[in-house]
């Protein structure tokens, strides 16, 4: 099946393909949940792979109008959002959740596209 599936990301970003299925998530709710459900090793590997490509990824997406992004560029943008989601555990906490926030939550119920 795999070879007939359309790639999620633009061809220029094929190196990020191993992370696409897990991290191309359209909502903050999904990204935050995936962060909490991931190990630090997984998030570090994703962070290490995408941060050197992030500037190029933003440039790539900016070849299109934001409201007319093709699907693969939209996926790439969602991957950048996930990069931001994992940056807090990787850069600050050394663990998936914010320390000392066991009882707290904050749901994002309305968010802008794409």
């Amino acid at each position: 099946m795999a070879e007939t599936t359309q790639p999620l990301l633009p061809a220029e970003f094929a190196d990020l393909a191993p992370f696409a299925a897990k991290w191309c998530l359209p909502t903050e709710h999904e990204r935050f949940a995936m962060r909490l459900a991931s190990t630090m090793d997984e998030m570090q590997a994703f962070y290490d792979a995408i941060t050197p490509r992030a500037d190029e990824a933003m440039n790539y997406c900016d070849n299109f109008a934001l409201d007319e992004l093709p699907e693969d560029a939209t996926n790439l943008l969602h991957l950048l959002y996930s990069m931001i989601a994992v940056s807090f555990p990787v850069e600050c906490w050394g663990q998936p959740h914010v320390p000392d926030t066991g009882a707290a939550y904050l749901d994002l119920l309305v968010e802008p596209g794409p």
Partner: protein
Amino acid sequence: MARWPKPAEGSWTEHFHLRTEPISYEDSISPAFYELEREAVFKRAWLNVGRVEQLPRTGSYFTKELAVARTSVVVVRGKDGEIRAFHNVCRHRGNKLVWNDFPKEETSGVCRQFVCKYHGWRYDLDGSLSFVQQEQEFFDLDKDSFGLVPVRCDVWAGFIFVNLAKEPEQNLLDFLGPMVTKLEHYPFAEQSERWYYRATVNSNWKIYMDAFQEFYHAPVLHAKQTPPDWSMAAQQAGFEAPAYMIDGPHRLVSTAGIHPWNLDPKMLKPMELLTRSGLFGPWDAPDLAYDSQAAGINPAGCDPWGLDSFQVFPNFVILVWGQGWYLTYHYWPTAHNTHVFEGTLYFVPAKTARERVAHELAAASFKEYGLQDANTLEATQTMLESRVLERFPLNDQEVLCRHLHEVTAEWVDDYVKAREQVEV
């Protein structure tokens, strides 16, 4: 050595004629006081329930659950363009008129008229009763006197307010006063990209208000959100506001800012450098043209300027950032020790993916900090309720906390006195 001059009285607290002794938090743990607050504060003050952009066209509506006042209101844009509010209850047998699936959850949408799910009574957007199922079965039913029950509603600077009093003691502009109303010169309408966060928090509503009306806590509670070089510098410096203002029941704290792009990169997180954004917002601010003096913003004339946080009594905050965006907070009490917190972020709509990514980091940072603040509240509430301690010392950078509790007590006292006079 203070970085910012204090008023001539030697402190902000004395400048505003507030007491300096330790305060009681009985007003945040007492069920009896909460019962008084419901009547004295939340059924007398103007309450912000949203913005006009949430009602873009004829028939656009949203509901707002006001558990503190034991009601729900529906806010709707009529055929004449006017925004009106009604108690969300059908005149026939008292069913909640507008809801989906779960009666206690808020909803929004667009409709031509409101139809009760129970027996199909219909109401026009102006609240008038337009259709009664099997009308001939009723006894002398005068449809004109069975319209929806109106709630006082007014709009200022695009913010929709309601007042649950039958006859509000002040109109909206008088209630808001000059410090707040000057903000109408700020370009809110241009910032229509909306991010809406919500949580139930296990603390009294004023305890969370307090958390976001002082920044004394910021270098400590949030120390690990920033690289060690930044955190150490922030803790050594402590926090001082360049200006506080009080106008009637409302408060303002202003802060100085930073230009992150001028800092040593060691002070910043790699993600901030990569996306040119952070908690304070996108580094590349949109071009918002407004007269900050006319708008009453940045009263100390800081350059760079950080933010102004307008604490609008009782439970509404407008926080305007130097980096060209704003956010609002609402704290809706549900009991003496619980409330619903809403945080809403507004940006000029992103035109490019790069701008949208910068918004994403600002919003994600807001949540990361907010989670730390929210969890601390539950820890505070439970120990306040232990009543092991009865008095708590507040410093001069916590002056706005002191003011909120004093103003709330004044409103409750006024209400109790007025009620006693009626009874005598």
